[in-house]
């Protein structure tokens, strides 16, 4: 495309059907948008799978699910759990099947530095291993980062746990009936906690001990 000076500026264009997703001079941006779009499409359309925005690790044959919005500190907590010996399932999505088991969605962790710049880190770099087979959920922990806070969680009722999960579920609006039916039996049998956390290491140790 020609600029005012006559110099050629090359753009990367990405479309989904007729809708333009991005027009950028930066290749990495176009690829990031493509990745996000594909991930979102899979999360919305996967049959028999429910995608909940959450971090997930495995411990003693059970999954610890940490639901939360972006920038709640999920990846940092997952990294601390891996450093403490847990296996890696995801720092982005808990992928549930109709039996209430969590499947791995093991993309590299996205850890932000002090400048908020995200770096992709493989779980092995943090001393963790990747989980392979699906796991039953052993605990749901809503742990939002709050600088200086101490982890003093309160127990959530099954109903409140379901609301926490629903508020991070990709298809909450489009398939509410199916989502509620799928989560109902799981929340009735799984212990759930909510609190503000400070240092991830302290919270990680608590979670691993609590899930047993």
């Amino acid at each position, binding site marked *: 495309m020609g600029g005012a000076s006559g110099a050629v500026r090359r753009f990367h264009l990405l479309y989904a059907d007729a809708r333009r997703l991005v027009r950028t001079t930066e290749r990495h941006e176009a690829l990031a948008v493509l990745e996000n779009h594909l991930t979102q499409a899979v999360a919305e359309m996967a049959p028999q799978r429910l995608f909940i925005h959450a971090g997930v690790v495995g411990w003693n044959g059970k999954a610890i699910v940490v639901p939360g919005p972006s920038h709640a500190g999920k990846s940092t907590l997952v990294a601390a759990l891996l450093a403490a010996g847990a296996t890696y399932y995801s720092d982005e999505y808990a992928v549930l099947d109709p039996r209430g088991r969590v499947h791995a969605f093991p993309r590299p962790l996205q850890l932000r530095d002090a400048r908020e710049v995200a770096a992709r880190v493989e779980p092995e770099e943090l001393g963790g291993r990747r989980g392979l087979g699906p796991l039953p959920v052993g605990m749901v922990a809503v742990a939002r980062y709050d600088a200086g806070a101490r982890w003093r969680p309160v127990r959530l009722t099954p109903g409140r746990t379901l609301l926490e999960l629903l508020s991070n579920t990709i298809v909450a609006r489009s398939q*509410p009936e199916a989502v509620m039916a799928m989560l109902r039996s799981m929340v009735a049998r799984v212990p759930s906690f909510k609190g503000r956390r400070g240092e991830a290491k302290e919270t990680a140790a608590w979670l691993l001990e609590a899930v047993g």
Partner: protein
Amino acid sequence: MSKKTKDGSGRPRQRRDGLVVEQLPQETLVYDLERHKAHCLGVVAAAVWEACDGKRSMAEIAASAGRRAGQTVPLDAVWLSLRRLSRARLLATPVALPAARVGTSRREWLKKAAALGGLSVLSITAPTAAQAATCTTQTTCTGLQNRFCTGAPCCTTGPNPAPPGTICKKVGNQNMCSCAP
């Protein structure tokens, strides 16, 4: 003392249309398909809601709810529950408080509710698919140098929400990233 609903019947009726209801052992979950709100009703609030058939008086609702909840449900608890159910738009017609209770402050209502227990009606707005997905906050995005733009959707909720449909990207020759369409 007036105990009339706004349709004048004085006998509240639960709303049924456009709702998905799931029962849990001690709670009832209700999803409002029109407003995309999810509500978690405590045991007493759920029992009061179930008892609102448009035929029962307040005293009859209290008695029915008491049987259902397995505990005594005083009239105060019925009024508190109706107030909350009405605000959550789970009644077919809004409930008008009786004159004697209109002046009751929010603090007093909360005190009463805490003393009675099981009256909670906790509500959330269900997220859209984009809201539930990974996003970059506008604050974070605009603080990134342009070679670090994430290409992720910008968050449309929380502090400093970005306009819907924007992504964190380099715009023109700016040094910092922006949330832009």
